């Protein structure tokens, strides 16, 4: 398979596995040959007979070896060369006379993509790997490439697991009288294209911290309603999340204009939103009602001309989260 073909394959499957293939492609260009090659190279002397070579291949269960003389690689020989020699009754012939002398090699610092291209172009089962000085430092097969990619995938997956574990155990690992993780997000006024990004980030952060999905959902819904309120009604503000082992507190603050009648604002259906907001699917006077239903405790304070502060507290079940 050439690299060109690989691109078509990706295109054809792209409606199924877009992310995974991108990751494989990334890795193929990231990983170097030296990271996946076999370092302990089994070699053979040019003075060995083909019968001796057969033993080397059989004992090591390999299908080809570099031929090395005085520390220099001078050729390659494969099981195909051996079979041809045996057919012709040349078992006692020296390897030197049967080996391939024009050897195609890869460099240790080539990318896997380069090696894959070579495997596609030449139908060899293996390539010797040379360092910058031309010294033989390893050997690479298509199996080495597959193994290397799988190993790298496993490593990436494992480090992701560790990251998740660390995040969710942050409160257990760090000892203090009271540990609080504080996250702050700016909310732009009337930006309906990017609006909701703060809530989206809060949601991801809570997921990282290992909170229970139901709790994450409650907090996300309430935070998103609060963020929408800042977007619609104010000149911009902030969402501040304080995470503690026993509770999550989300505060939405803005610099005005403030709510004239807080009690009225909390009534279902009461809204001061303009028509263009209603056309966007908000402004029906249900935001604060939703927030109240999603939180365990909520306080809303507002001063006209100064600003509004909405505090939402979510209790975390002990142990489970």
């Amino acid at each position: 398979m050439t690299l060109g073909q690989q691109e078509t394959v990706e295109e054809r499957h792209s409606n199924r596995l877009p992310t995974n293939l991108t990751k494989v492609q990334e890795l193929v260009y990231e990983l170097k040959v030296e990271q996946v090659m076999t370092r302990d190279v089994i070699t053979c002397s040019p003075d060995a007979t083909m019968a001796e070579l057969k033993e080397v291949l059989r004992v090591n269960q390999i299908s080809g070896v570099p031929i090395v003389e005085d520390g220099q690689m001078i050729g390659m020989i494969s099981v195909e060369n051996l079979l041809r020699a045996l057919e012709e009754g040349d078992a006692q012939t020296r390897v030197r006379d049967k080996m391939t002398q024009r050897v195609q090699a890869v460099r240790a610092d080539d990318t896997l993509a380069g090696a894959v291209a070579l495997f596609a172009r030449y139908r060899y089962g293996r390539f010797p790997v040379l360092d910058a000085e031309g010294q033989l430092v390893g050997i690479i097969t298509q199996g080495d490439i597959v193994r290397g990619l799988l190993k790298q995938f496993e490593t990436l997956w494992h480090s992701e697991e560790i990251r998740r574990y660390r995040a969710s155990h942050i409160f257990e690992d760090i000892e203090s009288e009271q540990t609080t993780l504080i996250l702050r997000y700016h909310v732009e006024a009337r930006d309906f294209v990017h609006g909701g990004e703060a809530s989206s980030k809060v949601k991801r952060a809570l997921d990282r911290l290992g909170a229970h999905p139901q709790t994450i959902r409650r907090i996300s819904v309430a935070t998103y309603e609060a963020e929408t309120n800042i977007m619609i009604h104010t000149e911009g503000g902030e969402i501040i999340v304080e995470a503690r082992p026993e509770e999550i507190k989300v505060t939405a603050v803005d610099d005005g204009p403030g709510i004239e009648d807080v009690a009225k604002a909390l009534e279902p259906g009461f809204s001061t939103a303009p028509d263009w907001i209603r056309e966007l699917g908000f402004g029906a006077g249900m935001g604060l009602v939703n927030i109240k239903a999603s939180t365990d405790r909520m306080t809303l304070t507002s001063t006209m001309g100064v600003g509004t502060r909405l505090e939402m507290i979510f209790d975390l079940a002990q142990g489970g989260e």
Partner: protein
Amino acid sequence: MLLIGWFINVTLAEILALLDGVLVSEGADLDTEVEFACGADLMSDVLAFTHAGTLLLTGLTNPQVVRTAEMTGIKAIVFVRGKKPASETIALAQDKKIPLLTTRFTLYESCGRLYTRGLQSCGLFDLGHKAQEQGPDHATRGQA
């Protein structure tokens, strides 16, 4: 007489067929199943009443519909009455991996087609007691 039994999960492929719909999102897995559906143009209602695994049918096409879906765990969105979502909406949905579908049918007819297929409504009942809370109509059908 409707020949439906208990509520069922429906795949996106089947939804496209039932609604004579078009898939807007690239790379969506049409074998994805939805468990509930919700037809609404008021996002606060969607935020209040939907569950994870819900299909949202709506006439709104702005990016906040996708944000709402993200917050509530909505699995896919159908835009009704032949509405085409804005490019920001498509981009955000792609980023959040929420498939977008369109249909030429109205919200009412789209919901009706899915409901008669057996896709149940979201909201207004406790998920833990799904079986007992399906309304008289369906209780009888279940016993029949």
